[in-house]
C-alpha cells in the first residue's frame, strides 16, 4: 500500500516538473525584450540594443521580416551591433529610389542560359563557376532579391537593399534544374525562370513536373513566349497580318498555359534574343504584362522603362573578374 502511494507521489512529482519545464519553455520565446527601453513614433522606433540582438532579430521584431535587416543596417550606417547602442528603426522606405547626392542606385539582373558539368561554352556555364559566382555574391554582401521586389522598386513603391541583384534563367534548360537550383537553394537565393512553352518536355528541357517543383519551392516562373521566335522582325515571306497574329499567340498563349498548369500569373516576359519593338510592347501591355526584359548589358535604375529592363548575360567563358564587372549597383552622377 505504502509502495503504491509512493509511486503515485513520484509520478505526480514528475508530471508537475514536466509541466513546469514546458511553461518555462514558453517564457524563452521571441517576444520583445526591448519594450521597456524603446521609443516609438509613427515613422520610427528607437531601441537600445542588447547582447542578444542581431540585425535580423530586430528586423523580425519590429519590421515583421527578418530579411529586412538591411533597412536597419543601411539607415544607421552599421554592419553589426554593439550592445547598448541606440538604433533608429525606420518604419517606411526612407529612400525608395536609391538617390544620393552623388548618383543613383542601379540593379543588375543576371541572365543565365544552360549549364554543363565541366565544358563551358558561350551560353553554357559550369556548375563550379556558378558556385563561385554565388559564393562571391554571398561573401560580398549582395542581396539577391525577388523579381517582385525589383518591380516594386521600378514602380517607385518599395525600397530595396543598396546592393541588390536579380538572378534569371532563360529558355528552361533541364541543366539549370540539375546544376543551378541546388546551389541557389544552398544560399537561399531566389531566382526567376523565363521559359518558352514549346520547349517544355523536350530532350534537354525541363519537364512540367520539374517546373512545378521549382514553382512550389518558391522559385518564380515567368514567360518567354511560345516558340522563342524573334518578336521584333518579320520572318521571310511573312505578311504583316501573319506577323501580328503570331505575336498575339506568342504573347497570350504562355500566359494561359502557365495559369492552367501552375496556377501562377505570368506578369513578365523575357524577349527571345532580347529584342523588342513598339508593337510588341503595346501588345504586352494589352495582355496585362507588367514588365519585360532585354539583354542590354547594363544595370537598371528605378526610372528605366519597365518594358526594356536590362539584363547582363553571364556567359560560360566569363571568369570571376568579368562576373564582378556585371555587378554595378550605383551610377555616379552629381545630383545637386
Amino acid at each position, binding site marked *: 500500500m505504502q509502495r503504491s502511494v509512493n509511486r503515485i507521489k513520484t509520478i505526480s512529482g514528475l508530471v*508537475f516538473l514536466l*509541466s*513546469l519545464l*514546458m*511553461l518555462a*519553455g*514558453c*517564457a524563452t*520565446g521571441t*517576444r520583445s525584450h526591448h*519594450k*521597456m*527601453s*524603446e*521609443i516609438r*513614433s509613427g*515613422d*520610427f522606433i*528607437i531601441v537600445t540594443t542588447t547582447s542578444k540582438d542581431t540585425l535580423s532579430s530586430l528586423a523580425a521584431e519590429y519590421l515583421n521580416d527578418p530579411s529586412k535587416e538591411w533597412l536597419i543596417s543601411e539607415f544607421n550606417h552599421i554592419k553589426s551591433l554593439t550592445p547598448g547602442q*541606440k538604433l*533608429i528603426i*525606420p518604419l517606411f522606405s*526612407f*529612400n*525608395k*529610389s536609391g*538617390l*544620393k*547626392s552623388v548618383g*543613383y542606385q542601379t540593379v543588375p539582373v543576371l541572365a543565365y542560359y544552360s549549364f554543363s558539368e565541366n565544358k563551358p561554352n558561350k551560353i553554357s556555364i559550369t556548375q563550379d563557376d556558378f558556385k563561385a559566382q554565388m559564393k562571391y555574391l554571398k561573401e560580398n554582401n549582395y542581396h539577391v532579391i525577388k523579381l517582385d521586389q525589383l518591380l516594386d522598386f521600378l514602380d*517607385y513603391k518599395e525600397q530595396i537593399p543598396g546592393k541588390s541583384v536579380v538572378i534569371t534563367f532563360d529558355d528552361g534548360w533541364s541543366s539549370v534544374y540539375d546544376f543551378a537550383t541546388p546551389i541557389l537553394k544552398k544560399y537561399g537565393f531566389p531566382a526567376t525562370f523565363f521559359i518558352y512553352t514549346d520547349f517544355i518536355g523536350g530532350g534537354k528541357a525541363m519537364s512540367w513536373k520539374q517546373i512545378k517543383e521549382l514553382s512550389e519551392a518558391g522559385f518564380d516562373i515567368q514567360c518567354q513566349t511560345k516558340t522563342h521566335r524573334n518578336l521584333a*522582325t*518579320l520572318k521571310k515571306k511573312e*505578311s*504583316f*497580318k501573319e506577323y*501580328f497574329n503570331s505575336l498575339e499567340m506568342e504573347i497570350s498563349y504562355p500566359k494561359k498555359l502557365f495559369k492552367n498548369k501552375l496556377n501562377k500569373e505570368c506578369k513578365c516576359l523575357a524577349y527571345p534574343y532580347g529584342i523588342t*519593338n*513598339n*508593337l510588341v*510592347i*503595346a501588345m504586352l501591355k*494589352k495582355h496585362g504584362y507588367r514588365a519585360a526584359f532585354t539583354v542590354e548589358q547594363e544595370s537598371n535604375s528605378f*526610372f528605366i*522603362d519597365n*518594358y526594356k529592363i536590362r539584363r547582363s548575360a553571364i556567359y560560360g567563358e566569363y571568369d570571376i573578374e568579368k562576373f564582378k564587372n556585371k555587378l554595378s549597383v550605383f551610377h555616379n*552622377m*552629381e*545630383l*545637386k
Partner: protein
Amino acid sequence: MKKLFNIYLLLTILFLFTGCAGVREFFGEFVDKFAHRLPDKVPDNANILLSSSYLEKALEYEKNDKLQTALFYMQIAGTLNPDSTIIPGKITSLKSTIDHKAKEHFTEGVTFYKKQRFKDAQGQFLTTLRYAPGHKEALDYLKNRLHPKEHLNYKVKEKDTLKGISKKFYEDPSKDFLIAYFNNLETGKEPVPGTFLELPILGSEFNQPMIDIRIELKKAENLLKEKQYREVLDVSEKILEYDRLNKKASDLINSAYYQIGLELSGQEKYPEAIKMFKNVTSNYQGVEEAIQHAINKELFKAKNLLKQKQYEQALAVAGKILDYDKSNKTAKNLINTAFCQQGKNLIIRKNYTEALNVLSKADPQYNCVKKTTSDVYKAKKKQAEVHYLKGVKYFLNEELQSAIKEWEKTLSLNPKHKKAKKNVKNARSLLDKLDKIK
C-alpha cells in the same frame, strides 16, 4: 499552497489548449498592462539629451545637403523633446528649403525638356526627387515622358475612317485592323469623332506595302473568270489602296460591278442592280443601256401601282428612280399624278387639311396639282355654307348651342365668313341674357 496549485492548474490548462503562443499572449498582456502603469521608461532629461544628439545629427545632414535625412532626424528630435521651442522652427525652415530646391530643379528640368536636352532634364528631375521624394510630376517625367513613346494619340475627326487613319499614319490602309485591335473597336465599325485613338508607332520596316500587286492582279483576273465578282472587288480595291492609279484594277472593279448589276437585273432586283451599275464608270460599254433598261422596268412597276391606286408604293418606286436619274420626266409625272389622286380622294372624304398637305408635296406647276388644289378650296367654301345654313335652322328653332356649333364649323372652313362671325356673337349674347333672367 492551494492558491499556487490553482494558478499552476490554470496555466497547464492554458498551455494544453493554446500552446506556448497562448501562454505568451496571456503574460504579454499582463506585462503590457503593468508597463503602462509604470512612469516613463526613459527619464525626461535623457530624452532631451537624445533629442539634442539627433538634432545635431540633423544639422550635420543638412550641412551635407542630405535634406530628407536631416528632416527625418529633426522630426525624431522633435518627438523626443516636444517642448522644444527651437526644433519646430528649424523643421519649418528646412521644409521650406526643400520645397524651394525641388521647385528650382523641377523648373530647370522642364526647361531642358522643352529644349530636348533630355539627359540634362533627367539630372534635374532626379535632383528634384532626391529633395522631394513625393514630387509626382518629376517622377512622371522620369518614368514616362522621358522615354520614347510606343504609341501616338490621335483625335478622331469628322468623316475619319480607320482605313483613312491607317493610310495617314502607316502609309498603309490595310493596317486598320491594328488600330481596331489596340483601341478595342469592333471590326467594321468606324471610330467616333472626338474620341482618342492610340496608334502604335511602327518601325519603318513595317511601313512598306505588304502585297505584290502583280500577283494580286492575276488573282483578281482569275476570280472574274470564275464569276466570283465580290472577291474581285475585294482584291482590286486592296490593289488601289496601294496604287490608286492602277488602271487594270479599276477595269476589274468596273467589270465586277457591271456583272453583279446584270445578275441582279436577271433576278428583277432593279434598284439594287442600278446601284451596282452606278459604280461603273459611265463610259463602260453597255452600262448606260443596262441602267435605262432597269429604270424602265421600275417605271412600269410604278405605273401599275398607280393604276391599282397603291399611291404610297407608287411614290416610293418613282422616288427611287429619281434618286438614280434626277431628271426622269416620267417618274416626275407619276409622282405628281399620285399626289393629285390622293388629294382628290381626300376631298371626297372631306379631309381638306390633309388634301392640302399632300398637294403641298407635289410640284405646283403641274396642271393637275393646280386644279386639285383649287378644287379643295372650292369644296371647303361649299361645305362652310352647308354648316352656315344648318346653324340658321337651329337658331330659328331656338337651339342656340347647336346653332353656335354649326357656325363655328363654318368659320373653321372659312374664317372670313362675316355672317357666321356675327351670328355666333349675337347667339352668345342672347344665351348670356337668358342665363341672367333664370
